[in-house]
């Protein structure tokens, strides 16, 4: 049983032997507790949301009615909002993160790497609620004045573009603003995993490419990216997992509209923001519907995170 085979049996017959067994079992129980936690979260979401799923069936996902007066609930607008904010966050955040990773591994002067890396990591330490306040009070007004209003004036009347990019109420709050702020929140995670991946690539590969006359860009494009490709996708998925479940920042800036809007500049809501907003006033079926929303969020993020972890399993941290 013991992991140290050579230990003499005489030594083991001390009062310590009881402690030894206790310590081993206690640590094993603590490790199993991690599994229990995940199972508990899963179970509580399903049980708590069950009345809503039973009441509305599949219609809970496809319906876009959220009517507290008549106790009718549908998740579709929140699902669309969650997916579209996360998608916008990725579209902005992924190029940013890759650029940062390339800068940190290939371009930055050695003395400059540490402070830059620390600054990027501190972006992850800033609490979500602070991003929300920054978004609401500083970013949104600027975004409304310098992007939303001019853009709406330009695209007004143009088919498709005039719908997607036109905002009826240019307050700066909306799906797109939430996406931009989410982008900066996921940057540190994607950037640091990508950086770790790039650093783990043997330098022989890089040196041989430089040796045949490749430029830095060509080394990145043709040597580093193909080498680290799978893990970079994993890192992006991990960022997606974070963006899907981010709550406070989004609640501040998404506008919290219950309707589905065809424009990404209009207010919307995400699963997380809807739960955060309504939970404390909710009772009965509304409460169950909110937990059911949580259940959907749980399974979506769970799938995304499992894929992400499988892809980045070669990386050490995060």
């Amino acid at each position, binding site marked *: 049983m*013991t*992991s*140290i085979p050579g*230990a*003499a049996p005489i*030594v083991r017959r*001390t009062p*310590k032997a009881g402690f*030894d067994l206790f*310590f*081993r079992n206690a*640590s*094993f*129980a*603590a*490790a199993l507790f*991690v599994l229990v*936690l*995940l199972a*508990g*979260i899963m179970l*509580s*979401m399903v049980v708590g949301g069950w009345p809503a799923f039973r009441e509305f069936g599949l219609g809970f996902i496809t319906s876009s009615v959220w009517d507290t007066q008549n106790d009718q609930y549908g998740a579709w607008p929140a699902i669309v909002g969650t997916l579209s904010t996360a998608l916008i966050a990725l579209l902005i955040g992924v190029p940013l993160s890759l*650029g*940062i990773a*390339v*800068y940190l591994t290939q*371009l930055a002067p*050695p003395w400059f790497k540490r402070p*830059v890396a620390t600054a*990027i990591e*501190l*972006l992850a330490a*800033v*609490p*979500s*609620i*602070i991003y929300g*306040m*920054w978004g609401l*009070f500083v970013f949104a007004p600027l975004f409304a004045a310098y992007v939303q209003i001019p853009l709406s004036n330009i695209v007004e009347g143009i088919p498709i573009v005039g719908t997607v990019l036109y905002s009826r109420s240019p307050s700066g709050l909306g799906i797109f603003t939430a996406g931009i702020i989410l982008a*900066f929140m996921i940057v540190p995670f994607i950037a640091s995993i990508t950086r770790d991946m790039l650093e783990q690539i043997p330098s022989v590969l*890089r040196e041989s490419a430089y040796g045949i006359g490749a430029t830095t*860009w*060509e080394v*990145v494009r043709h040597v580093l990216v193909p080498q680290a490709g799978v893990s970079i996708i994993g890192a992006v998925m*991990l960022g997606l997992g*974070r963006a899907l*479940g981010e*709550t406070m920042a989004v609640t*501040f800036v998404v506008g919290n509209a219950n309707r589905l809007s065809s424009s990404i500049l209009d207010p919307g809501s995400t699963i997380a923001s809807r*739960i*955060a907003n309504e*939970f404390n006033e909710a009772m009965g079926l509304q409460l169950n519907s909110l*937990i059911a929303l949580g259940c959907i969020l749980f399974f979506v993020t*769970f799938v995304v*995170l499992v894929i*992400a*972890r499988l892809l980045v399993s070669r990386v050490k941290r*995060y």
Partner: protein
Amino acid sequence: MTTASKPRELPHTPWGRVRQSRRTADRLMKIIATGFTFCAIFVLFWILGMLVVKGIGGLSLATFTEVTPGPGSQGGGLANAIVGSVVLTFLGIAIATPIGVLAGTWLAEYGRRSKLANLIRFINDILLSAPSILIGLFVYVLLVEPFRGYSGWAGGVALGIIAIPVIVRTTEDMLSLVPGPLREAGAALGAPPSVVITSVTWRAAKAGMVTGILLALARIAGETAPLIFTALNNNFWFSASLVGGVSNLPVTIYQFASAPYENWQQLAWAGSLIITMSILLLSIVARRIVSGGK
């Protein structure tokens, strides 16, 4: 190493030059990558600058001595919210530390490469990035609904659950860095595994394990979403029984920030400044310990 192996134009000159298009692409990429990096750093300093500018005016002695004001009333501070936050955060860490350290120890010392250990490691990584709002919902269903009321205990448990995966991960990482011969030396003296682990391995990995706990502390100190459903908030001093709502900084900031009262907003900014600076300080200290230990 990389700088030495980076021959600029030199190797190309004997047989010809790098075509202009390649050189342009290279230069463009370098500019973009550098620009993106400075863009992210700019946002960090923008946020910090905004906190200092808007928050510093709200900081006074009253902020730390008076309780949060009611709607529309003047004056007041954040004292009860600060104390409540500290209590909840340390309650969370007190719950998470023994579980996290023991689980990390099992993974590194007993489980190692077994199938079960790999599964636990994987699940722990999932929990590490699981949305914190779901943990809040879980604790709500587990502790708030059955006991018919928000409580500081539920808040502490929610924060603890968020901290556990962080501590498990760092503990395991730090213990795996301890060289095997140290353990063998302990075992050779006749010490049973538990004694080897507690007085040799743990001692060798102490700095790293403390870092993990500090990082977990930094992670949960600013968490808002899970507290909305568990500890909620109030405008009074917390009662030692921790039953009923417990005032805390994040939820206070959330409620005060978008309220129409000017002094509430001012307090929200001051609270944001306090909380962010403490967290950044904690993260930097934690990083220092790691780099000092290596």
